[in-house]
């Protein structure tokens, strides 16, 4: 039987111009990996259609330990939410091979 553990899945949708910065922020916060895909979107912010300037949004998912999630949120609130079109949300998921996603694994 698969041996499941619980980790946090944090999803970030942002105008794609900040993709590189976001990835650097994830790495700096201790994430072990991430998955990106192209997206478009609309949101409530006053940023308007800014995402179209660079060809849409990027949607990033990263599975991390709760501690790392806290650090990523802090980075988002400091460096991204005030300036860029960004949404983020998180929920708990089950994974096998915990060590791939968390230092404690």
């Amino acid at each position: 039987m698969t041996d499941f553990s619980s980790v946090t899945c944090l999803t970030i949708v942002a105008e794609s111009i900040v993709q590189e910065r976001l990835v650097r922020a994830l790495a700096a916060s201790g994430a072990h990996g991430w998955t990106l895909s192209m997206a478009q979107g609309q949101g409530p912010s006053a940023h308007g259609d800014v995402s179209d300037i660079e060809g849409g949004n990027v949607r990033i998912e990263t599975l991390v330990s709760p501690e790392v999630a806290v650090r990523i949120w802090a980075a988002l609130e400091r460096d991204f939410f005030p300036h860029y079109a960004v949404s983020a949300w998180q929920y708990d998921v089950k994974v096998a091979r915990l060590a791939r996603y968390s230092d404690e694994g």
Partner: protein
Amino acid sequence: MDLQESLSLALTNLTSPPVLAFVLGLVAVAVKTDLRLPDAVYQATSIYLLLAIGIKGGVALRESSASDVAWPILAAIVLGIAIPVAAFFLLRVMTPLGRIDRGALAAHYGSTSLVTFTAALVFLQASLISYEGYVVTLLTILEIPGIIVGLLLAQGVRGDRFGETLREVVLGRSVLLLVGGLVIGFLTGPVGYARVEPFFGGLFIGVLTLFLLELGMLTGRQLSAVRQAGPGLIAFAILFPLLAGTAGVVGGTLAGMSIGGAMVLGVLCASASYIAAPAAVRLALPEAKPSITLVSSLGITFPFNLVIGIPVYLLLAEAIGGWLG
């Protein structure tokens, strides 16, 4: 050229496929049509355009003697620095915009517009006026410095993010593709280029047409911001091209360029960018309002240059060439 000829050439500019596609994009937004170039294709399109401009600039550079191009290149660099500075301060006089938005606009006007450049060449060809082949090198060179100066003016060198931003712009996609293309074109020369000409040359205006269709939609979604722009910005978007265009013509003439060449340098200076600049500005100056820069550069200056600017810069080049040449 008499007025009628001139008007008919202006009409030719307005009815080039890229310009008409831009208008179609505006219409698509107005009638709420769900048209959208897929993002992956749009991104590939801008990679293609930047690389193609670079390569063509490099090939043209290699075909010119160093003594011919040295002064024009110097003139382009000086203008690429001076124009955004002028724009930044003129905007302070003419508009109530803050430092950030003025820097963003300076970055756009410091850079150049591909379609306007292309339209100028068509205009010259139709008028049977010759110009130097290396003007495309000047286009490549002028794409970037204005952007950096504009960002600097907005942030100040001390801005806490400035180091990171500079690195992101200078080592970013746009510069890599332009400069990389320039080097590729220079090294491969006309013989190597001939083998990729059907791709990077033949398709260029067609791909530009698709790109402007998308840009028209982007502008269309911002058009409601024209009203907010205020009379000062509208006046700027018409007057500044004339000012910068004159500076370009003078600079080109002093650098020893022909009448046609000086006119093209004038057009480059007068036009505002929409490929490299918006992305750099968005990254470095997120507080700047894209609606302001888009409406000003694409909504007003772009059509103004196509219809009125281009013939005016040619008249200027003829007049100034007469005095200084």
